[in-house]
Each structure stands twice: as structure tokens, then as C-alpha cells.
């Protein structure tokens, strides 16, 4: 390989500084705090005491799994239909889908709250028609709904990308060989967009499991998730050691799940677009 010139090396410096300062250093801090107590002495107690949070971990994983599954079930048909539209219409729909992603997650969650809350838009509408109010905020369903609402584009876009790259000839060949339209989806589109599905799952599951705001607001504070617990440890309990330990375990959980997903999608994994 050609030796890199000084300039080429210099060009990498800002990037390296960035990585060291904002990725590597915080990571080291997390590890340091996870294995020390308030006085800075080395200890395993933070990690060992994590069993107290077992229920929260389990709930987070469960919520994230359900949200991911719902996103996949809603997102795949949407992505498929998008990929079969006229090219000009496709662009418009993609734009519509990306639009909410330009708005802060917090604002989006708040607006969902404003819609669904007891005195929110939905219930005041129901009241107008003399219908009984529905209680959504504060239920498990509301938390899942929030996750699905916030993360659905991350499922749709990678699947749409891989579907729109598929040669139309594959669909014609399947139809030619006797597949109905529906059968074509299952026998051709689904297996050939596996890469997109896998990145979609990863991109929804990871933020869902680590989110710390949706559940607080839409769950009415009744369903503690890992993200909320970490936030509380740092900001309210001022116990950064336990918070760091939980973060560390969560990071490992995420790494494992990403590794598992990558194993499934070994042939053409990353379709990630953001």
C-alpha cells in the first residue's frame, strides 16, 4: 500500500480528536464509574447489585421487542407499497416520512401527549360527541404507541431502500412462474429485502430499549425503563456509579443484539440510511 502523505494524516486529526474526546473518553468514564464507589475505590458491588433492577431490564427488553414487532408489521407493508409507486410519488412519500424525523423526539412525544392526554384533543373530541373518554396515557399501550410513533421511520426507510433497489424482473419472474401478487411478496420481496429488515429491526430496537423519555411521559411514570432509571441515577439520586453500571450492562445488551442481527444478515447487512 502507498504511504500516506503528511496532509492525508493531518486530515484525520480532527476526526481522531473527536472520537477520543466524545466517544472513547466518555466510555472510559462509564467503565471507571461502574467499577468504583462514591470514594473512587475499586468495587464490584455496583454490578452485583444490578439484580435489583432485573424487573426493569426485563420490562425494557419486552417493550422494545413489542415496539419493534409492531413497527415491522406496520412498516413492511408501507415500505412495500411505497416501492411500487410511481418514482415521483415515491419521493414525496419518503419526504413525508422523513419530515417528523427533523423534529426533536421530545417535542414529538409532547405533542402525542397533548393529543392523547385525559384533557387532550382526542378526549375533548369524544366529549363533544358525548362519548365516554378513553384513558390512554399511563397504559403500557401508550408507551408502545409512543415508541412506534417515534421510531417507525427507522423501520420503513431501510426496508424501502432495499425494496426499491430490487429489479422489477424478479417480481415478473415470480408471477411468470405462477405466484399471485401476495405470494410474490412472501417468496421474493421478503427474502430479498432481508438486509433492510435486519437494519430496520436494529434501528428500532436499539433506541427503543434505551429510550428514557417516552415512558416517563406517556406511561405516566408507571413503567420504569432502563433509560429512565439511568437518568434518575445520574440526575436525581446523584449516584453516577450505579448509573454507569446500568449503562454498561445495557451497552453490552445492545452490542449482543446487534451482533445477533448481523449474523442473520451476513450476506448484505448494512442498508442503514439516516
Amino acid at each position: 500500500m502507498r504511504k500516506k502523505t503528511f496532509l492525508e494524516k493531518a486530515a484525520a486529526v480532527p476526526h481522531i480528536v473527536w472520537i477520543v474526546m466524545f466517544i472513547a473518553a466518555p466510555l472510559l468514564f462509564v467503565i471507571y464509574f461502574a467499577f468504583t464507589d462514591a470514594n473512587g475505590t475499586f468495587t464490584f458491588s455496583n454490578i452485583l447489585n444490578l439484580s435489583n433492577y432485573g424487573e426493569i431490564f426485563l420490562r425494557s427488553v419486552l417493550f422494545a421487542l413489542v415496539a419493534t414487532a409492531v413497527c415491522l408489521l406496520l412498516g413492511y407493508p408501507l415500505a412495500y407499497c411505497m416501492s411500487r409507486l410511481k418514482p415521483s410519488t415515491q419521493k414525496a412519500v419518503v419526504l413525508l416520512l422523513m419530515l417528523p424525523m427533523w423534529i426533536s423526539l421530545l417535542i414529538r412525544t409532547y405533542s402525542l401527549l397533548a393529543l392523547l392526554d385525559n384533557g387532550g384533543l382526542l378526549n375533548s373530541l369524544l366529549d363533544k360527541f358525548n362519548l365516554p373518554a378513553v384513558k390512554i396515557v399511563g397504559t403500557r399501550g401508550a408507551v408502545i404507541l409512543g415508541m412506534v410513533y417515534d421510531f417507525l421511520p427507522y423501520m420503513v426507510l431501510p426496508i424501502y431502500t432495499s425494496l426499491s433497489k430490487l429489479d422489477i424482473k424478479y417480481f415478473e419472474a415470480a408471477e411468470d412462474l405462477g405466484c399471485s401478487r401476495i405470494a410474490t411478496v412472501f417468496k421474493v420481496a421478503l427474502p430479498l429485502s432481508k438486509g433492510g429488515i435486519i437494519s430496520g429491526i436494529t434501528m428500532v430496537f436499539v433506541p427503543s430499549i434505551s429510550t428514557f423519555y417516552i415512558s416517563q411521559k406517556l406511561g405516566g411514570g408507571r413503567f420504569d425503563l432502563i433509560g429512565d432509571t439511568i437518568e434518575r441515577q445520574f440526575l436525581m439520586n446523584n449516584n453516577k456509579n450505579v448509573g454507569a453500571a446500568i449503562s454498561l450492562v445495557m451497552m453490552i445488551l445492545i452490542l449482543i443484539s446487534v451482533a445477533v442481527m448481523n449474523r442473520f444478515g451476513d450476506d448484505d447487512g448494512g442498508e442503514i440510511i439516516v
Partner: protein
Amino acid sequence: MEKTKVIDLKGICKSYGGDVVLDNIDLYIRDKEFVTLLGPSGCGKTTTLRIIGGFETPDKGDVFFDGVRINDVPPYKRHVNTVFQRYALFPHLNVFENVAFGLRVAKVKNNEIVKRVKETLELVNLKGFERRSVATLSGGQQQRVAIARALVNNPKVLLLDEPLAALDLKLRKDMQNELKALHDRTGITFIYVTHDQEEALSMSDTIVVMANGKIQQIGTPTDIYNEPKNAFVADFIGESNILDGVMIEDYRAKFAGFVFKCLDSGFEKNEPVDVVVRPEDVDIVPVDKGMLKGTVTSVTFKGVHWEIIVDIQNFKWMIQTTDYCAPGSEIGLYIEPDAIHVMKKSEFSGMFGDYSSYSEEFDTLSAPEEQETAHEVAGE
């Protein structure tokens, strides 16, 4: 005995956004026939095939399959299978599963699937390739898988959309023979689309020549070659000198300032016509014995023969001969009556059949030193 019509197209019209692709196509295809749709790109041949396959619906006209109108029948309900251009093999399936695809969809029993896939793979000379991934196959092998994938379903009609276009010349010739043999062995009707006239001539029972969305001529390969209907067909199939002429009376045609005996009749007296003379049908004779005389302007060595361009009264003739003539020399031409074919005037008259641009084309296409060596070889 008259064979039955499997496919019958009646008055098919199709246009895309104002561009007429097919203009009133009438065509029927008999059972077990090998029919080739031949024409330059954009002539509507692939659209015709896609209409038969069900991937396009005609704007006007009807498609009949075994006497039943199938305009609105979707592709998956037609007893027709397609070999796609560039194959469209499923990349997520291996060779066996690609071929088994149609049978699995039709819910054929597993042991029957194994048997039929094996037989079909043997038929296309791919025994032992069952477990291979399609991405590891060469172009020719992928082509065979695509053919097997279609054939295994025992279609009544097999549609082939330029299946050999992506293969190199040698392989293409081999596959032509194999396809022809497959057709004979299976007894399936083949509808073959190509722009390669040689392919069409060597494989087909019937050739359908298309241009500008219309059928120009339907006939056997020999008919099409020997009795082209108009200047387009004469030019597209093989090489031809097409001259402006007048039919003086039956069996006497005047062109290039000379009255020739010919075998054509049925024209009006002094009717303007197009006259076709194939380059291989012209004999070179000494100047004083020739019916026509001219100057050789260029000579190209083609292996089997020399291709010479002769200027006769400013019309450039192409002549294929095994006798070498030096550029600049004067020669005489002799044309037998059966070498002359007279055609009615058509919309294509005057557009084809003159080789005056030929030598210029040659100049611009080949590098100067190549041309020099060509002349050296010619001089020996």
C-alpha cells in the same frame, strides 16, 4: 394437416405516453412452432412478447390463447413461461430451488419436484449443479438455469426475450444449437425475440420481421431471405444492394441503366420498383463481358471471402467474392436472372441498400495502421 393456433393476436395496439409501440399487430402462432420476432431495438418485438406473457395489456385488440381471450388473465394464470433477458434468477435461492420455484408454487409433491428438477437440469446439461448458488455461475450456465426454470413447468408456450444477448459469440452459437435441439425434444412452442438476424435465420421455423411497431413480413427463413417484401426486410436480413428500378414488363427489369432478365412478374408496365441483388449473387467478369462495369473503391478481407465495394454510376455496390480485385481496378459484373428480386415500393424505399457510406465508415472505424496492414495482406 393444419396445426392449431396456440396464440392469436388480433389488432393489437399499444402506446406509451403518445409513442406508438405497436400499431395494429395481427399475428398467430401455431402449436409446436419455433417463431422468432426479429427487428431492431424499439420495433415493438419485446412489447409483443410481454403482451403474450401478460406483463403488458394492449390498448386495443385481443389476445387469444387456445381460442380463449386472455387479455385480462394475469401472468401467473397463463400457461406460458418466460426466459428473461439477463435471466432474473432469484439470488436468494440455489440452482435447484430456482428451478423448483414454479413447481413449489403449484404445490407439486416433493419427490415429484426432485425428479422433475433433476430431469430438467440434465436436459440443459447442468447435472450436478443443484446445490450451487446462482451467483457463482457463468453467463451461459445462468442462461441454462433460466431455461430450466421455465421448462420444468411444462408450459404450452415458452417465451424467450433475447436470451443469448449477454453471451459471447462462441457460446451464443452453441446455445443456438442447444435451444433448437431443446425445441425439437420438448415439442413446446417457442416464441423467441432477437435483433440478431443470423440467430433468427438459423433457429426459426417462422420469422416475423418487425419495424416501427408493425409487422413487415412473416415467413420461413428462406422466404424472408430470398423474397424480402420491402427494402427494410432486405436490408435488415443479410447484406443487400437495393436499387431504384422500373419493371418494364413481366420478367424484364431495368436498373443501373441496363435491362435485366429476371423471374419476377405481376407488376404493372413501367411500375417503379425496388430491386434487390444480394452481394454473393454477383459474378465478377472481365470488363467487356459484364452487363455493368465499375471501379473497385475498397476491398476488405472477411476470411471466407473478400468484400469489395464497386462504384457503378455513383451507386456503391457491395459484392462478396473469392477472387481478389485490386482497389482502383475496372471490373465487369454479371447477374443471373434468379439473383434479381423485385419488390414493390414501400415507405422504406431509398433508405437502405446503398453502400456509399460504407468506405467512410470503415475509415473512421479502424485505426490508420490497421488499414495499412490490411492493404499489405491484400497485396500478397
